[in-house]
């Protein structure tokens, strides 16, 4: 896919071309993958939901430049302390002029009027759109809309950015970005050029939203500096014409990829290096994952992303650590056992990580014999910590990816853990944070050496994922969890494990990556969510980057954005591709700035807001407890309703009125409160809760929304009306149903799509199997859904099986469950608090 890039254009010596970007797997994988949350940022959530204006102005104390400044700042400090609050509550135009605003603006697009239509939630019950909700379109000129970044890659919670922090506070909605920067794309312009054109002061990459003052100068859209257009940029390689800098691919596409020169390297690009760290203790052998792992790796050995330099290594551990010498020329793999786990050393330096091409036979040998090697083991202990230390030592010269398979609580050596879960205390939801900082420190060391650690936890018992997850959280890895995994007793988990593993081994990977997010002057980054290490205020260090993890960013408005009508965000991801090329993927998003509260509401993106709030709630539940996080979520709804009522809607309606753009907000929040990560009650095991939290932090928006609020369809009466015609197949598009039991009926067949987690198909009576047209439609629809995701889902058929039914009914979030209220009760609760 990447080899056919860019034919050179003779005279200028730099090529640029459009090419399909990494089509991986059968189709357009949008995707997802589990992962994590940092464990400490305490009051981040407060900013919008509870703190009154004034308290959140934290940033007064900045940059002392010299001694004077210190005293200057001190006086500032005192002033801040003594200034009355009304300074912050300064009068803003009273927003209760919706009708005036609407009447006055003849050019208000219809969409916006519809988005602002007041919806009384107590009366309107059919809120769901017929098809899954699309991202709202920012209110931009058609030209800008056309080139703007895809909402699947880059999405903002407010598609109209409020001008000031005060206006944002008034709106009571969080401002933030949801990013899926390394998504598998169908098409991506890749640009090879000698000079990558960037702003000289803020280093922004040139993008479609800059303005060309004339042929030779362009004005940066983030810092407004005027820059020169380099000579080279005057030539357009696509049209092969000269003097049209504004037609260059960089300026025509909001998502581009540059091939970077050596200026962007700190060292020569590393090869793809993969180390597999396998648990072979008795528990692991019992669970029986090893055989399936080896099979899967054998099948996909040729598909591992990489080139001729690709290196692999294996390391197994129980109470000792076993290394495998796979040096080319040996007749069979040699096992080297290190039993001193207190001071791990590497028995041989050059023969443990070997070139995959050269030692392919030995690797295959090892993978075939490995499952049998430990089948008789009686060793129950697990020295995960020392094994990770060994892995760190093995990998630190190159960097790369470490994949850890663990099946129990680590019981030996550094990083050993004790069981913290007490089944009777599950409702107290303590121990959401790590028990030790061993794994975090290790992850930070790994991150420093460009090593990403991915964790597969296949445990039937409590394994303290809260502590173990740190190894992936801070090294930008992914986390996979298979509760009660057993190769024969739990075939569903096995199937999921195999499918995930296949995707995991073959998906694209970027090494030694960093991502910087720049935004228009006046905006600043408040908090990041996801798996990474934050190296500076706007820079994330990602040892590995994979196409299934996403990031969320909370923003704050530091200075008024009044002098510009557009706000832009640019995410630039610099990474080493598996072919050893340094590449920069740049995404730019442009949004309008507004000064009316009604416009802010009109542009609110309810799904993005829900996802950002979910991330904030996870942080909050780790720092100040689950109940606090849940309250904050309910408050978010209460605040929105009261703010909308007092500021925008001048209709003296009783009941719960929200703008139409936010009509699903209470429903989504209720659904969030019923998620494993945030629900109360004793039915959720600690590891499952922690894993759900990890997923919230790293799943891309579409997957997360499907997890939170699954799509429910009725299958038996699907028609071809509005169907998609793809190639030769007709894919019917059934309507979405509300997630309530009264939408189900005895004689129907229903499909619930919970994203990557699973499918549930409920057949209350019987599915008419003989009716070929219908089954064809169902199959076409299922295939289409399956094709649109990265990790294929397993299909559960729910008939009479009680446990499957229980899980199915758990997802009907509008109904009352044992510990949580129904949708109407929730609305009443909100109305009472208002």
């Amino acid at each position, binding site marked *: 896919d990447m080899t056919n890039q860019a034919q050179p254009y003779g005279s200028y010596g730099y090529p640029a071309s459009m090419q399909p970007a990494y089509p991986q797997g059968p189709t357009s994988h949008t995707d997802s993958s589990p992962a994590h949350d940092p464990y400490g940022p305490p009051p*981040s959530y407060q900013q919008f939901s509870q703190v009154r204006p004034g308290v959140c102005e934290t940033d007064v104390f900045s940059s*002392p430049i010299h001694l004077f400044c210190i005293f200057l700042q001190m006086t500032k400090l005192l002033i801040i302390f003594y200034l009355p609050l009304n300074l912050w509550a300064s009068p803003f135009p009273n927003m209760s002029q919706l009708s005036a605003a609407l009447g006055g603006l003849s050019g208000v697009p219809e969409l916006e009027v519809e988005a602002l239509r007041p919806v009384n939630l107590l009366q309107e019950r059919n809120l769901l759109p017929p098809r899954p909700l699309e991202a709202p379109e920012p209110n931009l000129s058609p030209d800008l809309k056309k080139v703007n970044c895809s909402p699947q890659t880059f999405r903002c919670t407010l598609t109209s950015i409020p001008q000031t922090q005060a206006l944002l506070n008034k709106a009571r909605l969080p401002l933030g970005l949801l990013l899926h920067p390394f998504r598998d794309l169908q098409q991506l312009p890749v640009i090879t050029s000698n000079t990558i054109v960037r702003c000289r002061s803020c280093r922004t990459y040139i993008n479609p939203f800059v303005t060309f003052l004339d042929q030779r100068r362009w004005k940066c859209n983030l810092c407004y500096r005027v820059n020169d257009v380099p000579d080279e940029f005057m030539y357009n390689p696509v049209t092969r014409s000269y003097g049209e800098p504004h037609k260059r691919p960089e300026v025509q596409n909001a998502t581009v990829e540059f091939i970077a020169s050596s200026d962007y390297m700190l060292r020569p690009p590393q090869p793809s290096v993969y180390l597999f760290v396998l648990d072979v203790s008795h528990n692991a052998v019992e669970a029986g994952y090893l055989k399936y792992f080896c099979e899967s790796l054998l099948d996909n050995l040729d598909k591992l992303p990489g080139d001729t330099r690709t290196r692999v290594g294996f390391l197994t551990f129980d109470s000792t650590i076993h290394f495998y010498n796979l040096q080319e020329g040996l007749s069979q793999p040699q096992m080297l056992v290190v039993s001193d786990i207190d001071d791990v050393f590497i028995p041989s330096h050059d023969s443990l990580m070997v070139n995959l091409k050269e030692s392919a036979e030995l690797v295959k040998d090892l993978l075939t014999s490995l499952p049998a090697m430990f089948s008789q083991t009686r060793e129950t202990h697990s020295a995960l910590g020392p094994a990770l230390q060994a892995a760190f030592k093995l990998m630190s010269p190159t960097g790369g990816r470490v994949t850890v398979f663990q099946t129990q609580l680590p019981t030996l050596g550094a990083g050993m853990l004790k069981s913290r879960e007490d089944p009777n205390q599950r409702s107290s939801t303590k121990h959401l944070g790590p028990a030790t900082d061993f794994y975090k420190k290790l992850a930070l060391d790994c991150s420093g050496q460009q090593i990403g650690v991915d964790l597969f936890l296949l445990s039937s018992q409590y394994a303290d994922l809260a502590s173990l997850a740190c190894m992936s959280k801070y090294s930008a890895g992914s986390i996979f969890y298979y509760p009660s995994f057993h190769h024969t007793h739990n075939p569903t988990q096995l199937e999921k494990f195999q499918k995930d593993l296949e995707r995991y081994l073959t998906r694209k990977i970027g090494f030694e990556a960093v991502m910087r997010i720049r935004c228009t002057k006046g905006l600043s980054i408040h908090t990041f969510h996801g798996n990474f290490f934050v190296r500076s205020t706007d820079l994330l260090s990602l040892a590995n980057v994979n196409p299934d993890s996403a990031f969320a960013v909370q923003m704050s408005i530091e200075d008024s954005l009044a002098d510009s009508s557009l706000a832009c965000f640019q995410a630039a991801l610099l990474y080493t591709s598996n072919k050893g090329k340094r590449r920069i993927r740049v995404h730019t998003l442009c949004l309008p700035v507004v000064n009316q509260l009604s416009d802010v509401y009109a542009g609110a993106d309810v799904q993005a807001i829900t996802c950002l709030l979910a991330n904030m709630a996870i942080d909050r539940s780790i720092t100040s407890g689950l109940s606090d996080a849940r309250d904050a979520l309910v408050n978010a709804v209460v605040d929105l309703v009261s703010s909308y009522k007092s500021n925008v809607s001048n209709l003296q309606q009783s009941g719960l009125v929200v703008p139409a753009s936010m009509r699903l907000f209470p429903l989504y929040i209720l659904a969030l409160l019923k998620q494993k990560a945030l629900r109360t009650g004793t039915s959720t095991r600690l590891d499952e809760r922690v894993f759900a939290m990890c997923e919230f932090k790293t799943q891309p928006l579409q997957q997360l929304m499907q997890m939170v609020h699954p799509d429910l369809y009725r299958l038996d009466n699907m028609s071809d009306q509005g169907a998609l015609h793809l190639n030769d197949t007709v894919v019917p598009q059934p309507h979405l149903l509300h997630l309530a039991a009264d939408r189900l009926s005895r004689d129907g067949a229903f499909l619930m799509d919970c994203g990557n987690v699973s499918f549930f198909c409920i057949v209350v009576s019987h599915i008419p199997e003989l009716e070929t047209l219908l089954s064809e439609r169902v199959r076409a629809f299922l295939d289409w859904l399956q094709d649109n995701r990265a990790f294929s889902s397993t299909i559960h058929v729910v008939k009479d099986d009680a446990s499957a039914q229980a899980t199915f009914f758990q997802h009907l979030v509008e109904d009352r469950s044992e510990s949580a209220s129904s949708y109407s009760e929730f609305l009443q609760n909100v109305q009472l608090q208002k």
Partner: protein
Amino acid sequence: MAFTFAAFCYMLALLLTAALIFFAIWHIIAFDELKTDYKNPIDQCNTLNPVSDPTPHLTHTSSPLLVLPEYLIHFFFCVMFFCAAEWLTLCLNTPLLAYHVWRYMSRPVMSSPGLYDPTTIMNADILAYCQKEGWCKLAFYLLSFFYYLYGYVFILMSCTRIYTGYVHHLVHVQFVMMGEIFSKMKMAWLH
């Protein structure tokens, strides 16, 4: 002039507070460096937290330690004031003492002593909190510096007759102390 134990305590507190002021300034500068992207959070946290790492795999280097010494110094002269039965001074210091205890109890999970976690320190709220904390402490230490100075003089004076020439001595002491603080601040800044 009788030189009582209380007077000694005040004098000691005076000197130690000068050191604390120095620490507070160091903190402020350190967080400013983080904010303006001069330093990597891991390095900076290693500087601020006392580093005594027993785990061999870590490549961190040890460097000056700031948090615990500051708390210990403050605790030390609080104990001194307690012994000297200077109740008012002790009362004025208790809130900070309590704050220090609370702050240390609610620190992130860490195997080594210290307060700051490189993975959370870049969070805007935490960074702002730490900066604000630095400024507040600086203000507190500066005020208490002058309070100790007057406490010291007051004790000396209450034990002896007031000499007219004593005013000169007072002014002199004050200037010497101020000079000392300024030179320390300057050093901190240059550093």
